[in-house]
């Protein structure tokens, strides 16, 4: 009986020839990622001291101060300062700050290699599955265990195969695919499981699109989301100067808990309504919802391709009066490339406010919180009650293109209607 990609990676990680879903295995971790909000400050620094203050392999650890940068107040500034100093004291040279959301930083800086097992103190750590890695979010105490031992226990997940075929219709983006999958499976339809993305539509996707889809796997409850490591992945890693890993795909006779197949032609621009990510409908059904804030950014929807699609759409148009369009590129590198290519300029000319690369607005801790009764349409990953600020606010999740169209019309808008 064959194995899925996820099973192959975990088998290697635990030193066995094969593993089966449901098995509990102890795996060696190839990379550990911490951020500022849930990194050393929560349970880790103090307890590691008691345990001898020594890290199994500092070279495999990455720390990114991203949630509280730039800090909104002195409390946040102290957390960033603490994180920076802790990284230095523990010899962690892969420390980044003010550079953007951790998951984009990990990918851009060669901290993810196909076939790796990577854990991080952020639930969207599942993003690295776009590069054919097994990656998943863990809590701070669990990270403490990893920092001390370099190992973690994992229950080998069953895999759900998502097969997507054909060409995208106009104005449909990867975010719409992610919302479609979550809407179909439900927000805990993949709990404890792996989501594996196959089929020619996924094969043709550029890395920015794959990252968006893998990022959202956890919104269906999944442990990880994963794409095969194909020629395209290899080209991407070579192009950014960090080639590593080798071809990896599931065996033909691998066993899946479920296979979900659909055709790209059926896709439409979608929207997740408050306050759950699986509360999905076509955005064209929501054109009576007026918008106060439109947000393009985050580890889900702030990459180069996202900003370019939004800018191409907004060229020569203006954001509606009374609407604020905020744009936070997913990293300093994305920021720089978009600036160089005139994308930021186009966005600003349309009336967008271009912000620093940060997690801030996505979880309402700075740079774009919403007030009571306000509606935000956002290219981010969660629309939970109170997430972006007031618990009386409403968050609708959509693609960067749909966010741009909604900003122009001042209400939720299907980009094909303009």
């Amino acid at each position, binding site marked *: 009986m064959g194995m899925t990609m996820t099973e192959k990676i975990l088998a290697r990680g635990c030193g066995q020839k094969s593993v089966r879903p449901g098995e509990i295995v*102890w795996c060696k971790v190839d990379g550990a990622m911490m951020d500022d909000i*849930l990194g050393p400050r929560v349970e880790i620094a103090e307890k590691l001291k008691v345990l001898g203050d020594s890290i199994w392999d500092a070279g495999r650890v990455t720390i990114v101060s991203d949630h509280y940068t730039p800090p909104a107040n002195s409390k946040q500034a102290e957390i960033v300062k603490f994180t920076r100093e802790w990284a230095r004291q523990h010899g962690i040279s892969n420390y980044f700050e003010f550079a953007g959301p951790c998951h984009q930083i990990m990918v851009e800086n060669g901290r993810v290699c196909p076939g790796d097992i990577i854990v991080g103190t952020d639930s969207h750590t599942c993003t690295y599955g776009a590069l054919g890695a097994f990656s998943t979010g863990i809590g701070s*105490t669990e990270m403490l265990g990893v920092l*001390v031992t370099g190992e973690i*226990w994992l229950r080998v997940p069953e895999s759900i195969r998502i097969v997507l075929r054909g060409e995208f219709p106009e104005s449909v983006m990867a975010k719409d695919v992610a919302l479609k999958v979550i809407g179909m499976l439900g*927000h805990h339809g993949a709990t404890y499981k792996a989501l594996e993305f196959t089929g020619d539509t996924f094969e043709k996707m550029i890395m920015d699109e794959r990252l968006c889809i893998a990022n959202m796997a956890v919104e269906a409850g999944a442990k990880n989301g994963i794409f095969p490591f194909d020629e395209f992945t290899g080209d991407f890693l070579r192009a950014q100067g960090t080639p590593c890993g080798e071809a990896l795909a599931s065996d033909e006779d691998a066993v899946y808990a479920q296979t979900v197949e659909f055709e790209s032609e059926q896709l439409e621009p979608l929207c997740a309504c408050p306050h759950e990510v699986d509360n999905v409908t076509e955005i064209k059904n929501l054109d009576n919802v007026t918008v106060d804030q439109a947000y393009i950014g985050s580890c889900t929807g702030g990459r180069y391709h996202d900003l370019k699609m939004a800018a191409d759409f907004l060229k020569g148009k203006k954001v509606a009066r009374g609407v604020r369009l905020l744009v936070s590129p997913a990293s300093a590198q994305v920021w720089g490339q978009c600036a160089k290519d005139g994308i930021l300029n186009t966005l600003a000319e349309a009336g967008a406010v271009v912000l620093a690369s940060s997690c801030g607005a996505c979880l309402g801790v700075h740079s774009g919180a919403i007030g009571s009764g306000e509606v935000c349409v956002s290219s981010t990953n969660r629309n939970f009650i*109170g997430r972006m600020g007031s618990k009386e606010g409403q968050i609708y999740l959509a693609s960067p293109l749909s966010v741009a169209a909604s900003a122009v019309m001042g209400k939720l808008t299907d980009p094909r209607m303009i």
Partner: protein
Amino acid sequence: MEKESGVYRGRCLKYGDNINTDIISPPMYMELPIEQAAAYAMSPIDPEFASKCRPGDIFVAEENLGSGSSRETAPLALKELGIRIVLAKSYARIFYRNCINLGILAIECSQTDKIAYFDEIEIDYKKGVITNRSSQETYRCQAIPNHIVGLTEKGGLFACLMERREKVDGSDIHL
């Protein structure tokens, strides 16, 4: 809450489906130390939660408890308020692991919809039986998986790491 040979008794604070981590630990208070942040636990849907909580209370929810973030501040806030046991129909996996790692018992029971706010219940997690003393009903609950029993009985992951450290010969590499 009383503990005697795998039996816990306590008063239930009962909520519904999809009590996510943004509800249990709202992001805008995460910059505060946990002792202060705990006062805002559950505040998006129940601003009185922290003031109602008494040490030993049992936190009860229905489907998909703890979905969303990996933030350990969610179970930490519950622990800070004196909760040592949570009961739900199903859990989001990171929240489940975080509870166990912090020494909070997370138990699955498919009938939590029958439990009302402030019901007094008794959980025999070894036998897998819950007795609702308020309604005189009994429910089945899932026994804790074997690989987790050791962790919870020791009081969580940190206690296990301490024990491992004391074994200087390193023979027990897997915690």
